[in-house]
């Protein structure tokens, strides 16, 4: 242990007061607010609302797959529109927006000890542009021809041809425009998150004292800033191909006996651009989840996160590596087959830091004092689903194994498990964990446990058996699974079972939403630090934190974020802003 520096010997923080825009009216306080916490709630509410649309779309898809031919209104056209919008909404408008716009906005300033984001006005603009992007997306449901049905990957040429729903109507144009808006809005927000971590940290908060949540969100945002331009470029070029007849991606095509005016374009070029964004996107969603789950496990097991340094290095390493693995989505795309050797190797290398993270989570439990609270249950469920989904990634990343499995239900099961279920489960855990800070009240425990069990077991029962359908060879993106020699009778039964589970799990989410709303008023009073956690967001003078977060003086940080069960200390946790090497002298406010 190092010498103790008495608190009064530390000079006051040399943090210049940030220029905060204090709201004067209801409008600037709750609507056009520049307070990161309000923006976070706006982001989360919008993302959840559009996510509910995507949930309903998944039900409709499962109706068709589970009970083929029963529901006449689900035409192949409608089915493809459902899968496309479901995928796009879930990946971009829900998960990316929720983790970075929602959790990033709420937690970064509080956790690093800042009064707000460094550019609050730009931060506000970011939300409004995001909302606009969502509205443009929603408008495509009402446009002539309906939304695009090109699949969330939007591969040309089919995405802008008449054989695809929305391809020659408004659907694809609105989709691309919405993505372009989203990227512009995200870049504004992303600048804030990155620069706030770089420059907004309070006195004593070194990078190596940051909670892993901040590390995860920070690295994910850096990656997103560098990866989204690829999607931007792809969208702009495709928009020109569609509206002005250029041939960036469109080769010579004879469509239903008619020659189209395009010539020479390269569909593979689009795929490279798309996956250059698309693969980092997986980690843009995963890294915040990694960070958050580390903090949940540590707090609720009352033990420091095992191997903090390794965890930080792994986050940075995964972030860097994820830019050189993109073509593993294209093993059977017809690109140069020799690329397969390189990309299979890089892909399997990335498994090593990822595995280290899993070991460290599990080792944090070892000899801990595990409180089986709802956030902890969700964290455990995350490890199960993430390990499962990560391991099936070793099938798909190993180029030759991918050949029979690509474009089958195995892929669908894999990515739902690893970047659908696992991150969403972290989102739930995080909401149960931070809801008391946001509202001052606890979520209802009974409803919460019901929600946990149904979601975890239900999701596992949906996606684990689905792998085996893929192994049989059942392709993904099939609106009808009839007339196929490989589909046995029992496989159809399995599909019906999966559909029924999907409805049950979806229903449990309604219970969760009810809990969210009901507990604002009726939840148990939480107090400032119900989980007895160390990080700065739990040490604010008010709960919920007021504008400016920390009252008159910013906190000074004296220790890392994981001083749980320190030998010699009276309590089993020491908040980051408590000076001295031993027990805290007073209860935190």
């Amino acid at each position, binding site marked *: 242990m*190092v010498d103790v520096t008495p608190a009064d010997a530390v000079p006051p923080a040399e943090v210049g007061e940030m220029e905060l825009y204090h709201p004067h009216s209801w409008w600037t306080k709750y609507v056009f607010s520049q307070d990161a916490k309000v923006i976070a709630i706006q982001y989360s509410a919008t993302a959840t609302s559009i996510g509910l649309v995507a949930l309903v779309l998944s039900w409709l898809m499962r109706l068709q797959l589970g009970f083929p031919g029963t529901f006449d209104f689900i035409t192949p056209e409608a089915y493809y529109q459902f899968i496309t919008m479901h995928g796009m909404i879930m990946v971009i408008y829900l998960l990316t927006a929720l983790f970075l716009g929602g959790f990033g906005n709420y937690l970064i300033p509080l956790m690093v000890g800042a009064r707000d984001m460094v550019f609050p006005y730009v931060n506000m603009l970011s939300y409004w542009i995001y909302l606009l992007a969502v509205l443009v997306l929603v408008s495509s449901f009402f446009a002539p021809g309906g939304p695009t049905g090109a699949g969330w990957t939007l591969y040309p040429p089919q995405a802008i041809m008449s054989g695809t729903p929305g391809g020659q109507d408004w659907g694809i144009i609105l989709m691309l425009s919405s993505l372009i808006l989203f990227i512009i809005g995200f870049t504004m927000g992303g600048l804030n998150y990155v620069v706030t971590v770089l420059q907004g940290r309070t006195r004593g908060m070194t990078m190596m004292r940051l909670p892993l949540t901040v590390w995860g969100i920070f690295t994910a945002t850096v990656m997103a800033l560098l990866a989204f331009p690829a999607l931007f470029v792809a969208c702009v*070029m495709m928009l020109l191909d569609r509206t002005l007849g250029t041939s960036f991606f469109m080769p010579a095509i004879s469509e239903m006996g008619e020659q189209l005016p395009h010539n020479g374009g390269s569909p593979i070029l689009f795929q490279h651009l798309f996956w250059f964004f698309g693969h980092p996107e997986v980690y843009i969603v995963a890294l915040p989840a990694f960070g958050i789950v580390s903090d949940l496990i540590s707090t609720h097991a009352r033990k420091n996160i095992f191997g903090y340094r390794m965890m930080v290095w792994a986050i940075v390493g995964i972030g860097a590596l994820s830019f050189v693995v993109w073509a593993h989505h294209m093993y059977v795309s017809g690109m140069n087959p020799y690329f397969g050797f390189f990309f299979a190797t890089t892909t399997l290398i990335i498994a090593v830091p990822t595995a280290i993270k899993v070991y460290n989570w599990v080792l944090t439990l070892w000899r801990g004092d595990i409180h089986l609270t709802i956030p902890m249950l969700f964290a455990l469920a995350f490890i199960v689903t993430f390990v499962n989904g990560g391991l099936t990634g070793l099938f798909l990343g190993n180029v030759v194994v991918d050949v029979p499995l690509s474009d089958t239900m195995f892929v669908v099961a894999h990515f739902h498990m690893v970047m659908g279920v696992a991150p969403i489960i972290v989102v739930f855990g995080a909401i149960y964990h931070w809801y008391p800070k946001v509202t001052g009240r606890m979520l209802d425990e009974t409803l919460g446990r019901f929600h946990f069990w149904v979601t975890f077991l239900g999701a596992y029962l949906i996606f684990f058996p689905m792998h085996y359908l893929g192994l049989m060879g059942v392709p993904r993106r099939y609106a009808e699974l009839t007339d196929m020699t490989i589909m046995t009778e029992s496989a159809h039964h399995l599909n019906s079972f999966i559909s029924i589970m999907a409805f049950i799990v979806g229903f449990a989410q309604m219970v969760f939403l009810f809990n969210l709303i009901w507990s604002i008023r009726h939840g148990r009073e939480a107090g400032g630090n119900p989980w007895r956690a160390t990080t700065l967001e739990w040490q604010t003078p008010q709960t919920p934190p007021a504008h400016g977060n920390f009252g008159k003086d910013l906190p000074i940080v004296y220790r890392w974020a994981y001083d749980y069960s320190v030998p010699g200390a009276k309590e089993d946790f020491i908040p980051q802003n408590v000076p001295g090497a031993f027990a805290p002298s007073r209860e935190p406010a």
Partner: protein
Amino acid sequence: MSVILVFLLVIAGFAGWWLSHQRLTAKPWLEQGLASDIVDFDRSALPTAKIGLGVFLAVVGCLFSLFTSAYFMRMAVSDWQPLPLPRLLWLNTGVLVLSSVALQCAVFAARKGQIDNVRLGLATAGLTALAFLVGQLVAWQQLTEDGYLLSANPANSFFYLITGMHGLHILGGLIGLGRTTAGAWNGVRPQRLRLSVELCAMYWHFLLFVWLAIFALLAGWAATFIDICRQLLT
């Protein structure tokens, strides 16, 4: 995709340099109770706004690197027919250089507190940047009149697309420059004015650099240069 990978390597270099100053190998649990002796590791001494702009320019650089990557990949297809660049582009380049020089003069003036020279520099920079945009539009018009239409050949499509994107970025910069100029006339605090002028200059120089790079790309020199490099390597 090699251009973007090289660009990301540069970014990774910056990130690595920064990370190497963050004591990533320190054992934070042994530094209990200390705040004062590690204060140097808190943050950079640069103004926050400059760091923000720097990060933004990295994103813009990423965008143009990706366009360049796409350009080279699409170029490999046999239907590619390079288009003759209008001579006007040389003049436009000169005007844009002038704009950057004017802003740099404004920076020097702001540091010395010569408000009149700051105003002069800002106004010159704004007008020359506008002239550049008009020049680009005239160049587009000339090409269209000569029959090099947007969708006729991928080389034309890329020309309009990339110059258009660059123009949009200049246009965005003009909004920032406009606010700074208004501030210079309305007597904003000198320190604040100096920062905004410096930010504008930083953005302008970067866009000038981007313009020179894409000019070289569109004129075909970049491809020749890469060919020479490739021959040297093999």
